[in-house]
């Protein structure tokens, strides 16, 4: 059995997908099952896919600076959808915004510059926590 089922997506209009694809490949190499939903996904699409795929973790990447507004929409929709799945946010997130995101209910934040093994470990640890919960 894989260590985690992970749904990844790009919310908002931002097209910078280098980071999220690299994370997808690294998670797969670490044994995780990864579904990458692609660009311009709405909060509804993301949580529907997460529930359908029985995901342990949802990861999104935002490099347009719109991370706060988009995370707020995602956290609100997670509650509406009744999806009790941790959300991880990566991208161009300044330190003070990372704290804001955590306070909003984002489980982990990985700003640009975070090492790849650290991102993988963080996602797998969240996945393991979900499975033992």
């Amino acid at each position: 059995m894989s260590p985690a089922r992970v749904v990844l997506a790009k919310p908002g209009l931002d097209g910078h997908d280098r980071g999220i694809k690299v994370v997808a490949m690294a998670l797969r190499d670490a044994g995780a099952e990864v579904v990458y939903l692609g660009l311009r996904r709405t909060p509804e699409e993301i949580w529907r896919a997460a529930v359908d795929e029985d995901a342990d973790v949802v990861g999104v990447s935002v490099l347009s600076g719109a991370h706060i507004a988009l995370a707020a929409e995602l956290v609100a929709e997670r509650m509406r959808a009744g999806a009790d799945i941790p959300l991880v946010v990566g991208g161009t997130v300044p330190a003070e915004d990372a704290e804001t995101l955590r306070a909003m209910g984002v489980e982990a934040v990985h700003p640009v510059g975070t090492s790849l093994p650290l991102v993988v470990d963080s996602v797998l640890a969240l996945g393991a926590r979900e499975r033992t919960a």
Partner: protein
Amino acid sequence: MSAADTTDAGIPVAPVYAEVDVAAGLAERLGAPGAPPFTRGPYPTMYRGQLWTMRQFAGFGSPEDANARFKFLLERGQSALSVAFDLPTQLGYDSANPAARADVGRVGVAVDTADDMVDLFDGIPLDRISVNFTINATAPIILAMYLVAAERQGAASVDLAGTLQNDILKEFLARKTFIYPPAPSLRLSCDVIEYAAGALPRFNPISITGYHAREAGCDAVQELALALANAIAYGEALVARGLAFDSFAPRLSFHFATTMDLFEEVAKLRAARRLWYRIATERFGAAEPSSGRLRFFSGNSGTTLTAQQPLNNVVRSTIQCLGAVLGGAQSIHVMGYDEAYEIPSEEAVTLSLRTQQIIALESGVARTADPLAGSYFVEALTDELEARARALLDELDAAGGAAAAIEAGMPQRWIAESAYRLEREVSTGERPRVGVNVYATDGDGGALGEMFAADPGVAERHAARTAERVAARDADACRAATDAVMVAARGGGNVMPPLIDATRAGATLGELADVFRSVFGEFREPQLW
């Protein structure tokens, strides 16, 4: 062989180069600066005749916000403008669209109407200041609005200089601001090029771009091959319309990255010119030398900049700017040292401009054309990059050309695999990044000075302004003009003349993008992952 003994693209590098390492026939491969095959540069005297254009990419918030940043840059000696549009503008949504809300004014300026374009250039004479527009899927609409703004200033279209990125093929490869499927997208790009060939003699209607594929992760060889394969695709599409290659080729411009591996980057830029000259003459039968004379803009690489120890990025950008100059760039953008986190602050963007000015005026590198010519190493590397890029071009040809290869996902896989390889090399320390995997110290992140602060109210204010303008326009005239765009889109006539009329009549970017959506449909990227 480890990363220490090879270039970024994996080309082995010997400890020493000598005459024997340079193949015979160098003089023919070089030519003189300004003469075929243009290896040594597009102009005979290069920067002695005219310095490169210093063109910092800028734009955020409302048209007034961006206008203030433009004036800030011009007052500090910048010689031209380069407009960054927000994602809704790039993707054909007005600021009021719910899909756009979070992104209005974030990565660039929000433009909904021709009136916005008038505000954007308020007090900036468009017949004297050249403007670059980083816009692709909505490039025809933005060009139309720019022409209307110029007309309102009383500027003659023959005097308008600048560049429209308008390279939609590379959006499917990287960057990803496509709207419509590839075939109608290519048609719109070509409509712009065809229109400009007659009406805008000083304007570059396309900037064929390897930069974004490179930033998305590919190497220097792949960057060359992908940009040139796309150039071939545009050339073939325009020739298929019945246009003579020499009628549009001299106005095709290019855009390459300049990253950290200094000599490889210089060699790449020299090889690019030679490759394009050969393609223009051998493949397209160009008769005019200027049809094979490659001119390019270089954006320095954002992905080489680090969030850790951000001041180190000033040094990285200096090396990259030097590489672009030694490679013979016509215009250059230098990244802000804080761009790993935000739109550059005024302090950072001033330092970027000063970096260019110091290289131009103090270093002496602008005194002579192609100063590295004849270096055993640089010539051997230029030849090697050319040969490797040709081999990849053959692969892309065998796959049916750029458009077919992109549809099959082939180059997208090159890019993603190369990005992953690079990232693993950084993780393992095989590829050194100072301040990241070597000489890292605790508490390095976020040690920036003044940061850019985005304005959270811009979406609402800009949407309200557009609503007022829509209410004030002549609704019947606008509808008739918009219908004419629909007729051209359906029928295959050039969309530019009706688009200019429609934007003049007050049609919004979102309305016009919707006209094209209704005719062409929207593209959804196939998931290769």
